[in-house]
């Protein structure tokens, strides 16, 4: 799990030795711990029994977010004796409008929902407009999903605006200029932060919407990019 407790003096010595070795990757799991084992140092394992997950890939990050919905007893976020502290946005409670549908989802302060949200995790101040469908998605703070957009398995970074009637995610077959099998799998689409996606754009599964990517003029789906 990448969590270690060292005897201070042993770790200090090991780090000095590791630093002196030009062939080392300077990695705990690859270098420090194997070297200590080779030196015959005593190493004990501790078996952790609670929920844990490495979120080092897009699919595992997405999956872990879905675990909040699917395994609320395992990844228990409401344990008052063991709160997860965070920055608290200064935003009002979330609002769910009269035509909205919200199912199997996690919502937080500042969200305003007028469309359908199913099996998704929404961060603070996300707006889902009327007629939009958000399914199996992870929407980060301030994301806006405009009217009629349909998203499935999308992981969208902060402040990105999805234009009207955009279709994106695992239900859109085919490949496009943004298809990226290296980063995306299981149909998941990823959106960079601060983008505005053009109205009506169609984004096939496994796409990584990256504003630095050069694409042909007629394939451009990014209308603008917010630069702080």
């Amino acid at each position, binding site marked *: 799990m990448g969590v270690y407790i060292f005897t201070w003096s042993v770790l200090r010595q090991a780090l000095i030795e590791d630093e002196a070795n030009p062939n080392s990757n300077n990695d705990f799991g690859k270098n420090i711990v194997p070297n200590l084992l080779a030196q015959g140092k005593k190493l004990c394992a501790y078996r952790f029994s609670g929920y844990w997950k490495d979120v080092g890939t897009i699919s595992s990050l997405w999956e872990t977010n879905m675990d*909040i919905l699917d395994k609320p007893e395992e990844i228990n976020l409401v344990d008052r004796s063991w709160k997860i502290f965070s920055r608290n946005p200064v935003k009002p409670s979330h609002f769910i409008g009269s035509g909205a549908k919200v199912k199997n989802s996690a919502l937080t302060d500042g969200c305003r929902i007028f469309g359908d949200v199913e099996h998704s995790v929404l961060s603070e101040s996300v707006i889902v407009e009327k007629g939009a469908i958000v399914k199996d998605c992870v929407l980060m703070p301030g994301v806006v999903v405009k009217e009629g957009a349909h998203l499935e398995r999308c992981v969208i970074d902060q402040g990105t605006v999805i234009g009207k009637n955009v279709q994106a995610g695992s239900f859109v077959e085919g490949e496009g200029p943004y298809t990226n099998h290296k980063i995306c799998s299981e149909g998941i689409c990823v959106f960079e932060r601060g983008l505005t996606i053009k109205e009506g754009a169609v984004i096939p599964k496994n796409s990584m919407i990256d504003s630095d990517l050069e694409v042909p003029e007629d394939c451009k789906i990014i209308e603008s990019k917010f630069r702080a």
Partner: protein
Amino acid sequence: MFNNAMGLILADNKKISLGELSNPRALSAMPFGGRYRIIDFMLSNMVNSGVKNVGLLTYNKYKSLMDHTGTGGAWSLDRKNDGLHILPPYVNSEATNISSDEELTGVIDFLRQSRTPYVIVAGANVILNTTFDSFIKSHEESGADISVMYNRDGTKFGNPSYILDIDDDGFVRDMLYNPAKATSPKCSLGILCLRRDLLIDILARQMAHGQSHFGIHSIVKMFDEFKVHGFEYSGVVLRINSVQSYFNASMSLLTDSVRNDLFWSGKPIYTKVKDEAPTLYFDNAEMSDSIVSDGCRIYGKVESSVIFRSVTIAKNTTIKNCVIMQDVHISENCHLENVILDKNAFVRPGVRLVGHPDYPIVIGKGAGI
């Protein structure tokens, strides 16, 4: 933003009772709008205006208020200079009870220690999101001794109401308390601006006449002696005068225009932070037209309601037109309509409670049904 005024908030109002809801707390500590207390609005208005020195005048039941404000950190009022001051009744060592509450002694001391020329005085029962810049500017320009904010609500929020008769130059020439028939829609918001030294003089004189209670409208009433100028406010104002008006004010938050004016006008309303987890909606949750705060678990159906933090609504339960405060648990197979549930109430399975929109049922803090 200005830095020439201090704030004084009257955290309770002896003329206003919310029955069981105001038993455990001062009026301004009343939970409102999902994650707020009434006082958050006025404190934020002051802070967003640049006020750095705020006194909260209380006389009893201030535990809840103090729990909420703490040292004022949420409003950036935890300062070495000025900051937030809670002013409980001044009780000298010989006093045997607090009924002879000497509110004014403490307030006068607090006012004397400040250096700002102006004071903004506000009551506990109005909810609005504004800054006081134009109010102070209008006060300075009018040449008035005292300025009072009003709007055109008339008597629609019920009693207590203070109807102002204002002349063509904007000066108050009469004030009617709870008139049977309002002669004017101009209703005081109970927010004053005046010079700090004038307020000290007025209070000292009231004390000398044996008065011990701070009344905002006893100052407005001095229109015979001082020039009292009216300042009209045109934004959204919610007044909490009774259980009914509390219920109506809560329900009005479901209207886009009210919600946008109070919460999304660019001036944030600060409140105590709680680090709650997001709210989880499960398979059969059905939501419509509702405000929901963090930390809830919703399995049932919720319609046109205001839900505070960490509320559980179990499956096959229907909630309609309700205000449900923090940590309430509603079990399976219940039907609640037009009900206000105070903090920590517990509703057992199969309970049916239906109030009337004009007379909601109130379930007190910690009650089990």
